């Protein structure tokens, strides 16, 4: 580690150090990667790491390293432990398994069958991670690094070539060359709108000013999405490297990462990464004595979805209430503290070093004509393999959900997939072959957004989903535009009526009329896209709305006012389990005799249905 303590003074010194680390890394490949991301940590991976450490210490084994890594993707099967060399993938590992892994796999080279991943569709077991269908279908250019690095160790990132794009940029390339390279790669923003990153840099570069800023948008406000968090926590240096390249290209000497307060681990990892890069002289004054100064600081959000919008974000960084403002002037002219500012999403920035590693042409070969590179999606909801997936842009929804995601949970029927977060829409089965391309998704009434992909099955009510997003957006609207503040509320009232069974056929038409008005007359993206969840569900699932309105029926059995519970007298054996568990005391009956539900007392919580072992409780 000693050669990591001194500040590096030239690009040559940097290259020599990197080479040393690379060689050392190659000769020291025995390690265990334990996923330390929020999902696996919640499944108990911290304790697993502690037990590994303890056993290794007891055995006096020094040549096996432990890497407590960022998200390894297959969160559903956590805690995940991968043994290197061999890439042996163990899932749902418990503390008691650790000793066996060390003894059998590390020392004897044997695979423990019990801990292998078993495909839910074919029941086949897989040893190596890359053979598992979930990983096989992906192209993990960004996430694939998570296996290899412990985010708290800068040397891990350096050993796999980290920071060489940044050093190449400010020691050998002109600003125009860098911008040209990013433009040629056709990298588009991963934060929502898909604006070409190179053009954005160019605008800021061309605006003359004494001071400029570059900001990483790591607000990630979309519920059900955690792509950015996984990069911030799993590979924070890649974000810093992207910022360095971008900062140099646009002529900014100050970078800022706006990260949400709900991500304390990401904040901690970023702080550490910044101080490590500063110590090595990769951030700060006169970096590698090239004359380039660049410092990075953090700005912590405070829980407001709208602050992901760029002008609101700037207001929030300046310490004000996060209200968007009218554009133009664009941020490239008038941004943070009135200076030219460029804001890139975290995943966009993480792609930047990749462009330099693969070359803009190599990078541009991945994806489709209009959408180049890979995209990380958080594949969640009613799908078997929930987790983070990274695929070439343009892969179809079907491939992602069925081939990689392993299909729908419990063998149920696919109903819809929601993409684009609260600004996106719900797409039906008939569109499963749609490519995940910015334009195709927009044309279908949804959008790419930041990469949330929430799978819904026959038990999801689409009217309820629209209601869910409207509630969210009503809560998060900053209130500046009348049409957003009131319009979203009005749409919500109409949907509430429909869910409660008091909607009339006129509701549907009126709802669409209000939606059009909101879309046309709000200022920022929040209001303009707030209608997407409503319009897309009406477009593709009108039948479901009609069932609520015309038949007072919720086909998915979700809307409480339209369902009721009954006990089948034939099936009920009078065991009393439901009676005991009902929190509303709405069940009566004598022991060993069929029970009954008092409908006026029932709150539709469904606990009886869950508790009944006989399957005698029916939802109607």
């Amino acid at each position: 580690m000693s050669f990591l303590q001194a500040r590096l003074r030239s690009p040559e010194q940097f290259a020599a150090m990197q080479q040393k680390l690379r060689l050392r890394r190659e000769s020291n490949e025995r390690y265990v990667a334990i996923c330390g991301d929020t999902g696996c940590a919640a499944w108990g991976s911290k304790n697993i790491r502690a037990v590994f450490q303890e056993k290794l210490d007891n055995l006096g084994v020094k040549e096996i390293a432990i890497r407590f890594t960022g998200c390894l993707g297959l969160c559903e099967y956590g805690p995940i432990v991968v043994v290197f060399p061999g890439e042996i993938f163990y899932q749902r590992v418990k503390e008691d398994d650790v000793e066996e892994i060390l003894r059998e796999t590390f020392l004897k080279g044997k695979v423990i069958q019990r801990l292998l991943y078993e495909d839910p569709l074919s029941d086949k077991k897989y040893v190596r991670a890359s053979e598992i269908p979930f990983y096989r279908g992906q192209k993990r250019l960004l996430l694939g690094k998570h296996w290899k690095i412990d985010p708290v160790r800068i040397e891990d990132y350096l050993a796999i070539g980290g920071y060489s794009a940044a050093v190449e940029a400010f020691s050998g390339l002109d600003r125009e060359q860098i911008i040209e390279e990013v433009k040629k790669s056709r990298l588009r923003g991963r934060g929502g709108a898909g604006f070409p990153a190179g053009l954005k840099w160019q605008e800021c570069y061309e605006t003359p000013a004494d001071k400029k800023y570059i900001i990483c948008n790591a607000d990630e406000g979309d519920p059900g999405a955690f792509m950015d968090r996984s990069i911030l926590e799993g590979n924070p240096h890649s974000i810093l490297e992207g910022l360095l390249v971008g900062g140099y290209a646009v002529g900014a000497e100050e970078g800022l990462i706006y990260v949400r307060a709900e991500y304390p681990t990401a904040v901690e990892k970023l702080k550490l990464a910044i101080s490590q890069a500063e110590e090595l002289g990769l951030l700060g004054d006169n970096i590698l004595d090239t004359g380039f100064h660049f410092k990075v600081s953090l700005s912590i959000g405070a829980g407001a979805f709208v602050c992901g919008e760029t002008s609101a974000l700037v207001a929030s960084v300046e310490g004000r209430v996060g209200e968007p403002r009218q554009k133009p002037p664009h941020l490239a002219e008038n941004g943070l503290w009135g200076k030219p500012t460029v804001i890139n999403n975290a995943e966009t920035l993480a792609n930047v070093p990749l462009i330099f590693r693969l070359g803009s042409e190599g990078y541009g070969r991945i994806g489709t004509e209009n959408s180049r590179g890979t995209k990380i999606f958080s594949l969640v909801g009613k799908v078997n393999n929930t987790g983070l997936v990274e695929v070439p842009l343009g892969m179809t929804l079907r491939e992602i959900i069925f081939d990689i995601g392993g299909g729908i949970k419990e063998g149920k029927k696919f109903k819809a997939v929601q993409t684009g977060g609260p600004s996106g829409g719900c797409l039906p089965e008939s569109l499963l072959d749609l490519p995940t391309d910015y334009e195709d998704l927009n044309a279908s009434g949804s959008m790419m957004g930041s990469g949330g992909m929430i799978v819904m099955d026959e038990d999801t009510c689409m009217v309820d989903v629209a209601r869910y997003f409207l509630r969210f957006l009503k809560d998060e609207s900053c209130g500046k535009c009348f049409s957003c503040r009131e319009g979203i509320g009005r749409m919500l009232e109409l949907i509430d009526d429909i869910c409660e069974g008091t909607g009339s056929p006129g509701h549907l038409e009126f709802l669409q009329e209000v939606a059009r008005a909101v879309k046309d007359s709000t200022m920022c993206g929040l209001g303009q896209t707030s209608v997407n969840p409503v319009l897309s569900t009406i477009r593709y699932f009108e039948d479901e709305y009609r069932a609520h309105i015309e038949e007072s029926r919720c086909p998915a059995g979700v809307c409480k006012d339209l369902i009721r519970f009954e006990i089948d007298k034939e099936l009920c054996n009078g065991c009393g389990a439901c009676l005991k568990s009902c929190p509303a005391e709405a069940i009566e009956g004598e022991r060993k005799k069929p029970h009954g539900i008092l409908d006026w007392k029932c709150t539709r919580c469904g606990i009886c249905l869950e508790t009944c072992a006989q399957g005698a409780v029916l939802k109607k």
Partner: protein
Amino acid sequence: MSAKGHCLCGEIQELTRDFNGSIIGVLHNIQEKYGYLPENILREVAKETGFSLIDVYSVATFYKAFKLEPKGKHVVCVCTGTACHVRGSDKAVEELSRMLGVDPGDTTSDGQYSLETVNCLGACALAPLVVVDDHYQAQVTPAKVRKMFQEYAANSSEANLPAGR
């Protein structure tokens, strides 16, 4: 330390140590120290930083992370993000709300429990997710919430349990 001491000068200086023109960082410091934003501290901080109290108050109420009331001893947090919602998190909220006798966002009158909802904890594979203090409970159902909570209340010193499947 009490927020009601006589001279708060030292504390205020400590809380405003990294003030750079943005009041948000200062509010984070206050909340970290007291668990909420006490009124008297906000008044002093406004004076110290030169902001009007109304500006401080508008920022404090705009952002969800800031609380103007103290939290309960234990915080029960239900994720109501989209992934959790489609797997039924609203039922868990209702059940907890019924058990604790408070609406989401409120604290029980004995100050023991606060019931909160959050828009995504970024662990969507575990949906629906409930976090009691630091204890994650994954893939909950109303019945599971009930059971878990009764056990937790009986044995609240036990933290860091892995999320049960």
